[in-house]
């Protein structure tokens, strides 16, 4: 069942990519990846159990310092933490623009024992912030599974695609 839903989501996204204009596709894609209602359709769900096991094994995730690379929300981030650049873990620094498209991760919050689906947006429009570089890859997949990949520049579709820093935004609890 899950697999069928995944395939549906995949096909839908592909269809959008092929048959709509760039702007149309982007806004639709953005909705798919950040709209809470659609979250259960995302392929990321597949990995959540494996992820949880992984987390249990590590169990060292920070719950207090949101500028630490070990902070629980950053389990699949690859970039500069916006909290060290004038923003926070869920806000972009002044003068930047958020990326409408994102990659997704599932992170375990040791504070309440839940797994959360995270959206990793990039903040765009200025050059590399250079502070608090953080590279964690729990559940990260290669570029052919784009929505789980953190090696591409997610500012790629912005008017100004310069990468500045990354945030980690709670979308919701991962379904069990």
């Amino acid at each position: 069942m899950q697999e069928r839903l995944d395939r549906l989501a995949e096909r839908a996204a592909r269809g959008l990519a092929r048959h709509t204009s760039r702007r149309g596709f982007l806004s639709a894609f953005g909705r798919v990846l950040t709209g809470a209602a659609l979250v259960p359709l995302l392929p990321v769900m597949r990995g959540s159990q494996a992820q949880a096991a992984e987390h249990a094994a590590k169990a060292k995730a920070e719950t207090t310092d949101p500028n630490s690379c070990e902070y629980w929300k950053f389990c699949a981030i690859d970039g500069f933490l916006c909290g060290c650049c004038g923003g926070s873990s869920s806000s972009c620094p002044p003068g930047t623009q958020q990326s409408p498209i994102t990659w997704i991760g599932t992170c375990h919050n040791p504070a309440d024992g839940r797994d959360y689906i995270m959206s990793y947006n990039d903040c765009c429009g200025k050059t590399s912030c250079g502070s608090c570089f953080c590279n964690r890859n729990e559940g990260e997949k290669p570029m052919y599974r784009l929505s789980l990949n953190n090696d591409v520049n997610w500012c790629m579709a912005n008017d100004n695609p310069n990468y500045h820093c990354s945030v980690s935004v709670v979308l919701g609890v991962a379904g069990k």
Partner: protein
Amino acid sequence: MWRSARGAWLALVMAGAANAAPPPPLQAEHLVLARLPAPSPHWLWVYDEANNNETDMRLYLYDGDSHRQLGQIDAGYYPSPAFSPDGKTTAVATTYFARGSHGARTDVVEFTDNATLSVSGEIVLPPKHAQAIPLYGAGYSADAKFLYVLSLNPAAAFTVVDLAKRAVAGEIDTDGCVLVIPSAPHRVSSLCESGRMLTVTLDDAGHEASRKLSAPFFSVDKDPIFVQGMNTASGIAFLSFLGDVYGVDLGAAEPQFAPVWATTTAAERGKWRPGGSQVGAWNSRTGRLYVPMHLGGPGSHKIGGTEVWVFDTATHRRVGRWPIDVKKYGSTQAIQVSQDDRPLLFIATDTSYLLTLDAASGRLLHAEPKMGQSPWYLFNP
């Protein structure tokens, strides 16, 4: 696991609920754009020369109270920043190329709105902007009518930008003299190889009305002054290689030179010297001067300080001598002091630490590591 206040609160909640129900899940977050807090005299602009990647120089806005980076201005190749008198705008005169490091060259002044850190506009300049030390490389007139931008190609000049017309008003040849040191109403002074100061007075159109060359006030051969000047209450002050203080009053039509005084005793002179890329900081309210000093001979004028010497500029007495933990933080590369009554002293080191000190006591308040690649100059907003 329950280390923070929030954690402890959650633990209490969980304990209170006994085994009844798990804590409510975190709500979905919404990604927003951070807003800057209200401007503070304890803000600092850190100039990162990005020495290994010079096309990507930048300014970081740093808050000396919260010890946080607040934002960044991308500044291109050899930028010269200038700050509007009302504090609302940061102007950056700089150079770009159509293909990163090659292709057509564009010199431009870009204006950043200090409330949002977004570029609000630009004015294209003649492609001669000085690629040099950024201090006094650009400056606003006191009434914000003009922006002056230093040119060097290698003929020395400055470009006058009419800010109301958003256009270049003209270019003033400075006959080999360098720096743009603005004084009210529309005067620009420069330092000359002959040890003199050139002062050009502009008319309302931004064209040259008159110029005046001062008598020599320092000796390039015996003891040159650093071009890294400091704003004072009445003008500007320079340090010499040997640590003498040259004050210049710019309140009148012609510069007035204060008596030169020494930061060193006869025994210290020639042994202890100022050095680095920014060699002194001056607080106009408290009248304190901060000079990073090192032990060294001729030719050591870019060696960073191992101590900061503090002077009362009214009495010329040394009132402090603060060692830097060089082993831990590196030596001082740049220094700046906030312009308020409870000032902070900022020091950027050659290992990219930004140190924040209480400027009254010298107490180290914070050491921020990795403050960019090459934090060689520090500006007050």
